[in-house]
Each structure stands twice: as C-alpha cells, then as structure tokens.
C-alpha cells in the first residue's frame, strides 16, 4: 500500500515536471528553430527581404498576405547591432523579438519623424554603447533574436514603391 502511494506521488511529480518542462521550453525551442533556419537562409545581422506571403511561398504560420515582411536575425554576442529603416505611412513598424518570442520593442511610422528609424541594439546588462547621432539605444533581453519590419500594402499597385522603400533598411554589426 505504501509502495502504491509512493508510486502515485512519483508519477505525479513526473507529470508536473513534464508539464513544466514543455511549457517553459516551447517558446525557446520554437524561436531557436526559427532563428536557426532564418540564419542559415539569410545570414546573421543582415537584412532579408521576403516576397509578399502567399499560400505558395508561406513559411511562417498565420502571416498576413497584405504585409511586406523584412527581417534580420540579430546576434549581439560580438557587440551591438545597428538597425536603420524608413517606414511608410500605410502603416510600417519595426519590432524586436527576444529568444523566447517576446515582442520587447516596437516603433511604428506614426512614432517617428518622416518614418525614419535608427536603433542601436545591445544586450541588457551590458554597458550601453555610444549611439551615433540621432540613433536610439534599445536593450535586448537576449543576445539572439529577430527584427521584423512590417509594411502594409493597401493597394497592389503600391507594392513596388514599398518594396523599394524597405530595401533601404540596414541591419549590421556596429
């Protein structure tokens, strides 16, 4: 009887451990996979400009077909990374995601002067670097993460203009 109770308790603890492990590991595992694949395809600390998502080229779940996505896998382990972009007034945003998928920073076109964004991203806890004139400092909770620029395509005939605009974006080691 005692052994039976002990077994139930041990299995209960194992159940709780399995639950907690999957619960807390899932965001890191999924983001790690995403970053590894994106880095293998495009490199690190460099912009990647993807075609507008369709059913034929879609690689990421629940993307918006009316949005031009551009991204940069960033790695701060060798120092800060500078990100520069021009956002359109159709709605444009630049957002930063930590290695657990948290969206820790976003700026959109209405929060900028003429859509200009200039950031220096550095690891939280490190000494803030000296930002170039006009650039803002952003502390990242993780060394690795992802930057995404979203541009809403309100009319199909505007896509070419937006594509040219997004290609001005830069993501590079400082």
């Amino acid at each position, binding site marked *: 009887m005692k052994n039976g109770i002990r*077994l139930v308790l*041990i*299995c*209960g603890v*194992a*159940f*709780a*451990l*399995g*639950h*907690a*492990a*999957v*619960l*807390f590991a*899932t*965001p890191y*595992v*999924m*983001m790690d996979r*995403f970053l590894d694949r994106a880095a293998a395809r495009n490199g690190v600390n460099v912009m990647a400009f993807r075609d507008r*998502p*369709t*059913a*034929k080229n*879609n690689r*990421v*779940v*629940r*993307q*918006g*077909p*009316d949005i031009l996505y551009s991204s940069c896998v960033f790695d701060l382990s060798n120092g800060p990374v500078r990100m520069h972009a021009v956002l359109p007034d*159709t*709605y444009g*945003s630049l*957002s930063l*995601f*930590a290695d*657990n*998928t*948290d*969206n*820790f920073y*976003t700026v*959109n076109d*209405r929060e900028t002067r003429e859509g200009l964004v200039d950031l220096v991203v550095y690891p939280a806890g490190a000494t803030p670097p000296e930002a170039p004139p006009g650039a803002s400092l952003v502390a990242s*909770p993780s060394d690795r993460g*992802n930057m*995404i620029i*979203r541009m*809403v395509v*309100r*009319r199909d005939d505007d896509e070419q203009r937006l594509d040219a605009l997004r290609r001005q974006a830069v993501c590079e080691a400082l």
Partner: protein
Amino acid sequence: MAQKGKESAPVKWVVFLILVCVSLALGGVSAIGGMALVGGNQLRLGAWTTSPAIGATSADPYTRGATALWGILALNREEAIYLTSFKDDAGEPLQPNCIYRVSGGAMPARWWSITAYGPNHMMIDNAADRYSFTQENVAVDAAGLWSFRLAAEPIAEDVLPLGSLPGASLGMRLYNPAPEALSDLSTIPAPSITKVSCS
C-alpha cells in the same frame, strides 16, 4: 521461489521506469493542450477569441507557448490586436461544405484585415490567389457596414476561400488599435460570422 523473487525486482524497476516516462510524456502533452485551451483564448468576443497577453513580455507561459506554436512573432497588443475564430456565431466549427457571411462595421483601429488559414495555420491555396479581405478591398454598404462570404472555393468576387479541409480559421488583425479597444478588449465590435447555407 527464491529465483522468482530475484526476477521480479528488475521487472518492477522496468514497470516503474515506464510509468515515470509515461507520466512525464503525459505532462508534456497536457502542457500543449493547456496552451491550445488557454493561450491566446482568454477573451471571447462573439465567434472570436483573443488575449491581451499575446506578444507581451508579461505574457503567462500558456499564452507565450501558444504564440510560439501558432502565432510566432506576433506583435504585442499596444501595436496590434489579433482575433481568431474557428467557429461561427452559433459556436459551430467552420465547415468546408457551408457558406458563411462575415460582416461588421467600423473597427477601432488604424487598419484591419481578415485572413483565412487552413488547419495547419498556413494560408489556403486557391484559384483566385485570394487570402484576405481588408478595409481597403471589402464591400461596404450605404450604412457603412462591410461584409464578405466564406466558402470552400472562390466562387465569387466577395468570397474568401476556406479550402476543402475542416479545421480552417479566420485571423483578424487590428493594427494601431484605438485607445478604448486597448484599454478594454471587450469593447471591440467583433465581426459576426453567420451560416448562410450548407450543401
């Protein structure tokens, strides 16, 4: 008898280890189930669900896990509110053999869109290459109400294809939500999804 006792000890250990492994695995599966049930679904708005914690640094682990699995790289709600629906207004799952009408009025956001996704959460391939309706291309009547239809195939200009597989869903994006929507998600006038007919 002595021999039997010697053999039963390793057997007991094997059974014990199997039970522990099964418990661990069940715990893991229950975590995924918890993410599906709780994460991203904390608030029901008609046929739609959402969560104030999607993308947030303060997200609970179930919402964070659900976002990682079924909505990775989602913006936090200050920037965008995401509504999801797998069902119609009657609470019935969206069926590929039925036609639905999706309708609504002015949305409290700078820009909105509604996209159809297959059971794998990817866009649905269709002959018209039509994946969404937005505030720019949806039909609006004289009273300012917009509407479009859902059907398996793009049978008309106002139809958003749901594909032929069960388990399809709709995702609504509200970019730059209005302050009242931000402070109280329950004030969002969620679009209605009504069944028109089934074959």
